[in-house]
C-alpha cells in the first residue's frame, strides 16, 4: 500500500465517521426534547458535517481522480463507506443518542488533538479547527451523561442501557490496520495507544461521576472500516443520497 492510498483511505474513514454521525443527529432536527436541545444537536450535526467536508475534500485531492466532496458523500455505495458501525446505529432514545455522542467525542478529541501534530499540513490544519468544536461537544455530552446517570431512576436506567448496548461498538474506534501502520510510520497519524488511554481516562471519570457502570470489554463489533456495515446504514444512505441519485448533478 502506498502512502497516497493509505492517506486517501484515512481521510475517507475520518470523513465518513463525521458524515454518518452528522446525518444521524440531523434526524433529531425538529424532534428534540426541548427547543434548546434541538438547536444544540443541530449545531453539533453542522459542526460534524463541516469536519466531514474538510476530510472528504482532501480525500478527493489526495485521490486525484477529480471526485468532489459531494461525489464522495452522495455517490458511493454502502460497502464503500468506511465509518465505524457506532455512528450508523439508529438514534434510539435521547440517552442513547447522547451516550453515542459521548463515546464518540471521548475518542474523537484526543485523536484530533494528536492529529494537530501531523506531518501532513492539511491534516494538522483540519484538526486544529476541529479541536475547539470537539472540546465543546465532549463537554456537553459528558455533562449530559452525568445528568442522566446521576438523575432520576429512569434516566439512570436508560443511560446505562445505552452504554451497555453501544459498548460493543467502541472497539472499532481503536482498530488499526495497514492504513494506520503506513501513516504512523510517516508521522502523519498518531499511534492509537495514547488515544485509547485518554479515552479510558475520560470515560472512567465521567461514568464515575454519573454513577454509571463501565461495561466490561468483551466481544467487539468490527467490519465498518472494511465497508461491512449493519443493516441500518443502507436505509440511512437511501434517504441521505436520494436527491443526488434521483436527480444526478442537481445543485442548490
Amino acid at each position, binding site marked *: 500500500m502506498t502512502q497516497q492510498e493509505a492517506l486517501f483511505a484515512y481521510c475517507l474513514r475520518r470523513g465518513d465517521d463525521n458524515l454518518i454521525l452528522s446525518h444521524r443527529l440531523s434526524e433529531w432536527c425538529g424532534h428534540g426534547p426541548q*427547543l*434548546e*436541545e434541538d438547536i444544540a444537536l443541530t449545531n453539533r450535526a453542522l459542526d460534524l458535517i463541516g469536519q466531514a467536508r474538510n476530510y472528504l475534500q482532501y480525500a478527493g485531492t489526495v485521490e486525484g481522480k477529480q471526485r468532489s466532496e459531494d461525489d464522495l458523500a452522495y455517490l458511493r455505495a454502502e460497502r464503500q463507506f468506511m465509518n465505524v458501525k457506532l455512528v450508523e446505529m439508529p438514534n434510539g432514545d435521547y440517552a442513547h443518542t447522547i451516550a453515542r455522542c459521548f463515546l464518540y467525542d471521548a475518542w474523537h478529541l484526543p485523536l484530533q488533538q494528536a492529529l494537530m501534530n501531523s506531518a501532513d499540513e492539511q491534516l494538522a490544519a483540519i484538526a486544529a479547527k476541529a479541536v475547539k468544536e470537539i472540546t465543546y461537544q465532549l463537554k456537553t455530552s459528558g*455533562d449530559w451523561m452525568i445528568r442522566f446517570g446521576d438523575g432520576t431512576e429512569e434516566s439512570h436506567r436508560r443511560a446505562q442501557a445505552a452504554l451497555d448496548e453501544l459498548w460493543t461498538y467502541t472497539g472499532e474506534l481503536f482498530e488499526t490496520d495497514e492504513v494506520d501502520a503506513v501513516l504512523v510510520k510517516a508521522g502523519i497519524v498518531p499511534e492509537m495507544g495514547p488515544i485509547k488511554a485518554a479515552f479510558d481516562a475520560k470515560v472512567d471519570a465521567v461514568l464515575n461521576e454519573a454513577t454509571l457502570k463501565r461495561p466490561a470489554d468483551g466481544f467487539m463489533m468490527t467490519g465498518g472500516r472494511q465497508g461491512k456495515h449493519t443493516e441500518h446504514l443502507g436505509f440511512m444512505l437511501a434517504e441521505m443520497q436520494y436527491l443526488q441519485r434521483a436527480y444526478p448533478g442537481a445543485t442548490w
Partner: protein
Amino acid sequence: MSENPNNWPLWEVFIQSKRGLDHKHVGSLHAADAQMAIENARDVYTRRQEGQSIWVVPAVAISASQPDDAAMLFDPADDKTYRHPTFYQMPEGAKFI
C-alpha cells in the same frame, strides 16, 4: 407551554458582544440549571458570532414594573426638561463640563 410541569425553568439571557461593552438582553430559554442555561444560550444565541460573554439569570429572579403603572411611574418626567443637562446654558468661558 409554561404550564407543563415537566418544562425546565425559564432563564433570561444577556450577551456581551465585545469586551468593555455592556451585556444586553437578547431573549430567554429553558434549562434545568445555570450550567445548562449557559450551554443552551451558546447554541441558541451565539451561533453567528453575536458575543464573547454570556450571563444567564433565572427569569423568576427578575422583578418588573407593571405596565399599568406606566402612567404613574413615567409620565411625570414628561414636563421636567430641567432634568436634562441641555436645559442649562453653558457659562461663558467654560470649556469642560
